[in-house]
């Protein structure tokens, strides 16, 4: 029973985080959204008896992908539509 409850909660959270990161205009928050997707995905993998994949996703998806996205945003614009003044995008 716990299996199903966890699975459903994770499924909902995954989709919610994905939609959040797609729709949010502030790219920094959008990237955080992908980070959350990775966290939940990693737990999902663990639930589906794939500890190796879970560990990889945790290490690559949560830490490294997020940081390279943040570096990119620092070097480009933080606002998706680039309306906010470019001076204000310091991280």
């Amino acid at each position, binding site marked *: 029973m716990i299996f199903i409850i966890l699975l459903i909660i994770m499924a909902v959270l995954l989709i919610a985080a994905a939609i959040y990161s797609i729709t949010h205009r502030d790219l920094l928050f959008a990237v955080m959204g992908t980070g959350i997707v990775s966290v939940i995905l990693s737990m999902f993998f663990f639930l589906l*008896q794939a500890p190796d994949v879970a560990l990889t996703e945790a290490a690559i998806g949560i830490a490294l992908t997020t940081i390279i*996205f943040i570096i*990119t945003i620092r070097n480009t614009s933080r606002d998706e539509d680039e309306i906010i003044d470019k001076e204000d995008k310091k991280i």
Partner: protein
Amino acid sequence: MQEQFNEVFTKYHEVITWGVYGTAIALMLIGLYAILIKKNLVKIIIGLTIMDAGIHLLFVGIGYIQNGTAPIFSPGYENAADRMVDPVPQALVLTAIIIGFAITAVALSLVIRLYKHHHTAKIDQIKSLKW
């Protein structure tokens, strides 16, 4: 414990199927939507990452076997081969995750360079080549 799990699994099989396959396909579609609609290059790459995440989930979901254990022969379980989940999709996903990361890194470095040239990261403002 096991019988109980099996009973619940069979009873809610449809819900579980949708919970795994449905989520994975939804993630893919959300990612694809961002790739096709969004104008910001970083958002497009976020879409690519999310699409990949969906495919990876689909891989692991395909490999899962009811009541299976992780494919590791830990001490005391040396003869558990017949109730382990499928290890092949897991090995493939491992490769796919690393390759996906490499592609993301190269894509983001291209975005940085494009921004330096054009002072924008929006696809409709970078048009020296025909899109």
